């Protein structure tokens, strides 16, 4: 920005008024003309409109002041009579640079104004002291004009300062080169060497403003390469983002239509929002009296059909639903036909204990509903609301007992991340048959979905994870699941076996529960056999499907930062990672 050197030379050029090409400034042979490279570099007073890297060039001239101005007298000792004035230069077509002595602030302002009017490209001042000493710096009070630096802003050209002798020399030489070609020094010689006599021969100034940002060609080349690379990366990233966005939308749609179960597939750990929790039926244990949502509670009751039992409770229940095994008396046991084929659901009285806090539910009666208030999940498992609400809201959306999702079908989390898309695609890649089934099998029943889910879980777990249960048991479960798709998966509550239970016995226990099992749930809490049953049930559940901890958090924890950045730029990358 600041000037690094000042070069003065003599140039000859045609008048643009009659010359066809105006831009033909040619240096006059330096042996027969003036040229100079004043040694102390000019001091930069103002950089307005000075472009770094590009030199300021122009024809030197002295800006005239109004004829009767007092400053003319003050400037007279420094300004020769026939100095090059604006009128000695072509009206247009060439840049001009003014030079003048730094007199009083008032005169300087007048010079600046004059240069502004005459289209000066820059202004060179010199101190009227005829000294060879370098001029003071730009912040020196010498250069104060008493208007708060305003002059630097309002003049549309940069201003430089040079020592007095240099300035005097410039003005003197300028006075020599102000007339016709024949009048300038060696004018005769010039015309003989072919300079058109009609041309101008004037002083030409070249102020170099430093090459701070003038880039060497190698750097330009590197920058261009870098730019191209950045462009390619940007385009790739953009297209990947667009593709990934499409996949996210597609996954969201498939989740919404129920084709993909995010949590069961281990794609995303979901939790149940409070408003969904509030919609789950809440009723008094044993009486079936709904507390919050009558319709859903009755709906839940209707799916557990049983032979009508003639009890006081039944007669007082609503007549629309056939019955519910809601005997208030613990010693009346439900009939064995309670569980039928693939429409099995554990009825409330088969779940005497909250699996979370291990407290027994207290049955209430329709007459005096003082029993425990229980929350029933869509899978018909019941818990204390205070126990299960916190778990579903904070930890997982899967039922603690059977790991069925408690979320409504088609519930989709607000944010579908790229990682979820990647895992879902990976799951489909691992199990193409199952994926095809899932995509085409919208009409498939619940059992089929369960079976497929299990087999997918198996294959995934087999690749990456470790089973908590002995492998034989898992294989048995897998064989059972995939062998007969019409058979529902054995519900936890009726699975009698520890590990190694034969499949046949398991099946029998599903379709035709043992009478002792049916009676056990309503045993008094002190009975040890019921606890044994509960414990066995819990142990039997160890081999069930795994519910993953939130894979997003797990993956975020295991991914190094550079990889996260890379995945942010190229969202499709890293698909080969299993988890």
């Amino acid at each position, binding site marked *: 920005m600041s000037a690094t050197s000042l070069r003065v030379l003599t140039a000859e050029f045609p008048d643009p008024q009659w010359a066809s090409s105006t831009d033909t400034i040619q240096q006059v042979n330096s042996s027969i003309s003036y040229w100079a490279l004043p040694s102390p570099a000019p001091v930069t007073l103002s950089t307005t409109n000075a472009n770094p890297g590009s030199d300021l060039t122009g024809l030197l001239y002295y800006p005239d002041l109004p004829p009767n101005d007092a400053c003319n007298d003050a400037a007279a000792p420094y300004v020769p009579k026939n100095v090059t004035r604006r009128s000695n230069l072509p009206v247009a077509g060439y840049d001009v640079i003014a030079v003048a002595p730094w007199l009083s602030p008032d005169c300087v302002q007048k010079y600046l104004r004059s240069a502004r009017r005459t289209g000066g490209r820059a202004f060179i001042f010199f101190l009227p002291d005829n000294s060879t000493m370098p001029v003071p710096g730009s912040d020196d009070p010498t250069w104060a004009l008493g208007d708060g630096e305003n002059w630097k802003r309002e003049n549309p050209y940069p201003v430089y300062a040079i020592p007095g002798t240099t300035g005097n020399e410039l003005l003197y030489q300028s006075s020599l080169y102000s007339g016709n070609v024949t009048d300038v020094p060696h004018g005769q010689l010039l015309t003989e060497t072919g300079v058109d006599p009609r041309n101008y021969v004037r002083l030409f100034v070249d102020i170099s403003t430093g090459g701070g940002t003038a880039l060497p060609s190698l750097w330009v080349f590197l920058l261009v390469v870098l730019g191209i690379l950045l462009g390619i990366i940007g385009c790739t990233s953009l297209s990947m983002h667009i593709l990934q966005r499409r996949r996210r939308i597609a996954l969201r749609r498939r989740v919404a239509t129920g084709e993909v179960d995010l949590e069961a597939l281990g794609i995303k750990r979901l939790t149940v929002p409070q408003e969904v929790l509030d919609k789950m039926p809440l009723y008094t244990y044993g009486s079936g009296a709904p507390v919050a949502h009558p319709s859903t509670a009755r709906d839940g009751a209707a799916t557990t059909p049983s032979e009508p039992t003639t009890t006081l409770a039944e007669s007082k229940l609503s007549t629309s639903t056939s019955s519910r095994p809601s005997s208030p008396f613990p010693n009346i046991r439900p009939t064995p036909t309670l569980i039928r084929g693939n429409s099995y659901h554990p009825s409330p009285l088969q779940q005497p204990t909250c699996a979370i806090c*291990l407290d027994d539910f207290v049955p209430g009666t329709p007459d005096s509903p003082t029993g425990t208030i229980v929350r029933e999940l869509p899978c018909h498992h019941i818990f204390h609301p205070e126990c299960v609400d916190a778990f579903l809201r904070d930890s997982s959306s899967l039922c603690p007992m059977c790991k069925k999702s408690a979320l409504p079908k088609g519930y989709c989390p607000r944010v579908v991340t790229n990682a979820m898309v990647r895992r879902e695609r990976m799951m489909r890649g691992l199990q193409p048959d199952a994926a095809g089934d899932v995509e085409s099998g919208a009409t498939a029943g619940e059992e089929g979905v369960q079976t497929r889910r299990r087999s997918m879980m198996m294959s995934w777990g087999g690749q990456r994870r*470790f*089973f*908590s249960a002995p492998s034989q048991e898992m294989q048995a479960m897998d064989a059972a699941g995939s062998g007969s798709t019409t058979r529902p998966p054995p519900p936890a509550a009726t699975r009698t076996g520890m590990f190694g239970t034969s499949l046949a016995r398991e099946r029998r226990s599903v379709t035709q529960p043992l009478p002792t099992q049916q009676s056990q749930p309503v045993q008094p809490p002190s009975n040890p056999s019921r606890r*044994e049953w509960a414990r066995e049930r*819990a142990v039997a*559940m160890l081999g069930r499907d795994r519910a993953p901890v939130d894979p997003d958090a797990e993956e975020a924890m295991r991914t190094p930062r550079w990889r996260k950045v890379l995945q942010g730029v190229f969202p499709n990358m890293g698909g080969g990672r299993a988890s």
Partner: protein
Amino acid sequence: MASKRLVKELQTFHRDPSSAVLVLEPVSDDDLTNLRAVLKGPDDTAYEGGLFNLSITIPPNYPSTPPSIHFLTPCCHPNVNFKTGEICLDLLKTSWTPAYGVVSTLEAVQQLMGAGGEPDSPLNIDLAKLLRAGDLVGAEGLVRLMTRVHAMGR
């Protein structure tokens, strides 16, 4: 809720002991969140006859989150870190549900020992290497030796 449920679990355990878990008790009487357990090496395995000490730490929001269980006695198993006692078991991490308890989790650990483990996600690399190379005799010998050295006669 955590301590209430723990008391229940401990009462149930005392009334109705498990065949796998020989001892389950709090380390100190006034702190229920740090338990000590002694696990019996499963029969008909290389761990037979070994008695393994475990430390159990109960998180404050138990049973929503699983207890953390570590072997105190060095246990030579592909999915157990021999030095720190860390156990790689999905039940302790991902597939936990509140329906499990401390005792059933310990039983699952015993079943993990009995099942031979998964050498593809090992915490004990030496043993996993033997297993993956197919040297079942060598692996069983190593386990038997380590069980004898660390888990017997104390």
